[in-house]
């Protein structure tokens, strides 16, 4: 409750929540405002915004309504951001928790794997994964989760390394409690806040990765993702630059929202910084 209060008193956090809320609202009302298939043929391609009152943000090179794609795309971005982040955070926590809690050989092995993932530029791995397993939405989301976890693992591990030395953990050990209890009841809840804060970074990265994939025409073409639209707009960039510009602004604002909320969470969960 205290954290929520601190969060709501923070103008940065509120600005972020408003931006993110707007995206969520777009996602929610998309089927009401634009009931037709956003990928369906709506009219003549490449009409400028405002040129036709039916399409207030214009049409794309395939004659689809950009505004409709923008609203429906909010769902895709949130879905990708949410699910990929969940995957990355779960993998990261498992790796980080085991490595940090047990140390020794377990730590060495898990951290070597993490290191391998980090030495390989993550976008390159993503390209390979999509080339190998195809570019439907499910694959893309999983692939993004699979490349985005190493920082989470490192963060969790670092938290576990300090927390496992805490006296209350030692006390529980001395009370004869199991490792599972120590990990899940004692250490993890205390390690979670920074990980949750970092999840906002992962979410931003996930949205950016998907849009970069889509830009290279490697994402799922059957969903109205913002990145797909930017990629489509690239071929008409020099004349109809609005096709790329509009979804880019949408991505920018959503990520801004996610980062601001993350920063707000950080301030709220970390009272030491709140005074700054």
């Amino acid at each position, binding site marked *: 409750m205290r954290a929520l209060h601190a969060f709501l008193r923070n103008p940065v956090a509120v600005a972020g929540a408003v931006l993110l809320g707007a995206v969520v609202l777009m996602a929610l009302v998309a089927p009401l405002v634009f009931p037709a298939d956003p990928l369906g043929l709506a009219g003549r391609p490449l009409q400028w915004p405002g040129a036709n009152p039916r399409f207030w943000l214009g049409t794309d090179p395939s004659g689809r309504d950009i505004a409709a794609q923008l609203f429906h795309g909010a769902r895709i971005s949130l879905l990708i951001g949410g699910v990929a982040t969940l995957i990355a955070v779960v993998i990261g926590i498992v790796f980080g928790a085991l490595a940090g809690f047990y140390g020794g050989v377990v730590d060495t092995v898990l951290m070597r794997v993490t290191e391998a993932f980090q030495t390989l*530029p993550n976008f390159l791995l993503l390209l390979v994964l999509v*080339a190998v397993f195809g570019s439907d939405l499910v694959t893309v989301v999983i692939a993004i989760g699979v490349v985005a976890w190493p920082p989470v693992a490192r963060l969790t591990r670092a938290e576990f390394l300090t927390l496992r030395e805490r006296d209350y953990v030692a006390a529980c050990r001395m009370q004869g409690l199991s490792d599972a209890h120590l990990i899940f009841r004692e250490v993890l809840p205390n390690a979670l806040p920074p990980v949750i804060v970092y999840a906002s970074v992962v979410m931003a990265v996930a949205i950016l990765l998907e849009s970069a994939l889509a830009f290279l025409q490697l994402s799922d073409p059957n969903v109205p993702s913002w990145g797909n639209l930017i990629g489509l707009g690239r071929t008409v960039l020099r004349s109809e630059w609005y096709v790329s510009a509009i979804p880019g602004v949408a991505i920018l604002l959503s*990520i801004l929202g996610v980062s601001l909320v993350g920063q707000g969470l950080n301030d709220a969960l970390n009272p030491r910084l709140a005074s700054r």
Partner: protein
Amino acid sequence: MKLLLLALRRLAASLPALVLILVGLFLLLQLAPGDTVDALMAQMGGGDAAIAADLRRFYGLDLSVAARLGAYLWRLVTLDLGFSAIYGKPVASVILERLPATLLLMMGALFFAFSFGMALGVVAARRVNQWPDTLISTLGLIFYATPSFWFGLMAIVLFSVYLQWLPAGGFGDVAMGYTGWAAIWDTATYLVLPVLTLALIFLAIALRIMRASMLEVQGMDFVRTARAKGLSETRIVARHVLRNALLPMVTLIGLQAGTMLGGSVVVESVFTLPGLGRLAYESVVQRDLNTLLGIVFVSALLVIAVNFVVDLLYARLDPRIVG
């Protein structure tokens, strides 16, 4: 000599991760639909099955996966990166041709991101919660949230299409046959936008880290000591805060080197730079396994080298670290 030993030790420590990556990628790409011969056939515009079979035999694609992996690793031990079917020459020379563009791009972006990130971070921390801080922090957030490829595209629209100040892509104008300073200037104009684009997000990160680390160091006991000594604020920042606050920045360089290589895939694609990133993308699409693994190998070495330099730098900055 000691330095060399240190470098070798670093390399040895990174070896397991490197082998893991190479073997992992090799096996992963076996699952991909189509092989390099399919890509070749697409490039050739067709051909019959006999030609395809002949090519597969020629490139050793008819052997078992284990045999090919073994052969690859064995060649790697002798530092032979193999032969690129798509480019028709040794992978090493393919990579060597593409390396300069990527190196210039990365160096430029690193330099730009960290020098400006540092300066802005210092200003923001010195004026914390006043308008310069608000402005800089907001800019940082926006830079962070901007998809780099989109920024690149918009920069092309603005600077190349409308203002016509800078070229939209490519890497120097061959037809003009520039030499000497003219060539350097020419190349520089081609690099401005890509470097800015790649640097943007790292600028945002560096700025944020620098600001936070300045604020943290400013609250430390020894800064209070410096105040108690009656030093001016400028001297406190210059002599006591800055160097301490730089330590996390140096660490950041090491952490971001790998990410930057990943980012250059997209940026090189936006600006059609003949660099490693685009080569990597092309070799994935073309199933040019040898080239891809070669790039991964070289870029991992690059990351390791950057981290090694970072370690040396860190040891120089911080006397508590014993090299």
